[in-house]
C-alpha cells in the first residue's frame, strides 16, 4: 500500500484584522487505479473531457488545476467548470486555481468531467483511489 499526503495551507495577512493562518493535512492509503499528474486540453463539451471514469462505489481523490493557458503557453482567462458526468456542475475554476475533492459515485455510476466556458483550456489533473474506503 502507498500513502498520499495532501496538505492545505490557507493564509491571509490583510483579509481581516485577525490574521488567517492554518494548515491541515491528511494521510490517505491509496491504490490502483490511479492517474498521475497529467494535462488535458479541455473544450466546451464536458463529455469530451472525462478525467475520472464513471464508477459506482469507489472513493477517488481528485486534483484539478487551471493552468491559465490554452496550450501550456498561450494565456487564457476563461473559466473551467468541474462537473459530474451527466453535466452536474460542482463549481468553476479560474486561471491558476485548484480543486481537491473526494469523488464517490455512491451507486450512481458517475465520473468527473471538465468543461470550458469558452475556447480551449489546458488543465492539470490527477486522481488516486482510496484503498480503505468502500
Amino acid at each position, binding site marked *: 500500500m502507498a500513502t498520499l499526503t495532501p496538505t492545505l495551507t490557507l493564509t491571509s495577512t490583510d483579509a481581516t484584522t485577525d490574521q488567517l493562518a492554518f494548515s491541515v493535512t491528511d494521510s490517505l492509503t491509496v491504490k490502483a487505479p490511479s492517474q498521475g499528474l497529467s494535462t488535458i486540453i479541455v473544450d466546451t463539451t464536458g463529455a469530451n473531457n472525462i478525467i475520472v471514469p464513471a464508477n459506482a462505489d469507489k472513493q477517488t481523490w481528485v486534483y484539478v488545476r487551471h493552468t491559465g493557458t490554452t496550450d501550456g503557453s498561450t494565456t487564457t482567462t476563461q473559466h473551467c467548470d468541474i462537473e459530474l458526468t451527466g453535466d452536474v456542475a460542482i463549481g468553476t475554476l479560474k486561471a491558476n486555481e485548484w480543486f481537491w*475533492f473526494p469523488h464517490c459515485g455512491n451507486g450512481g455510476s458517475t465520473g468527473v468531467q471538465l468543461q470550458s466556458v469558452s475556447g480551449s483550456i489546458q488543465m492539470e489533473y490527477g486522481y488516486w483511489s482510496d484503498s480503505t474506503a468502500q
Partner: protein
Amino acid sequence: MATTTATLSLSSDMLSSPISISASSTLMKAGVTEGLELIEMGRGTIAETDGSKTAEFGLPTALGADKAAKLFLVNKATDPTYYIDIDLHDTNIGRLYAGDWMFIPWGMNDTASELVIEAEPSGATCPYEFVLLQEPQTLEAHS
C-alpha cells in the same frame, strides 16, 4: 484589497519516483483582480439520526450567477468508518471519511447548488469544521 492564498501540497511514496505537487492560488472575486473578502469559519456536529441536512455553510446566498466562492470542509470524526456524504441538492458528489478534507470552488447560485451533508453509517456522529470564502453580500434593509 484582501489577499488570501490557498496552497495544496501533495506527496506520496506510491511510485518509485516520489510524487511531489504544490499548487498555490490567490482567491479572487469573479472577473476582477480583487480578493474574496467575506470569510465565515465554524464548526458543527451531525449525527446519522439527523438525516440529510443543509449545514450552516450550505445555504446558497443571493450572490447570483458567476460569483466566486471557495469552501473548505473537514470531517473531524476519529472513527475511521464514520463518513460525511456530500450532496449538491439531490445529487451525491462525494464523501469525507474521518480526518479527510476537501477544498472546492462552489457555485452557490440557487437552490440547485444547496450543499447538503449526512453522517453515515448507522450510529455515526461526525464533528466537522468549515471555512467559506465568498464575495460580499448585499446588505438587507432593516425590517
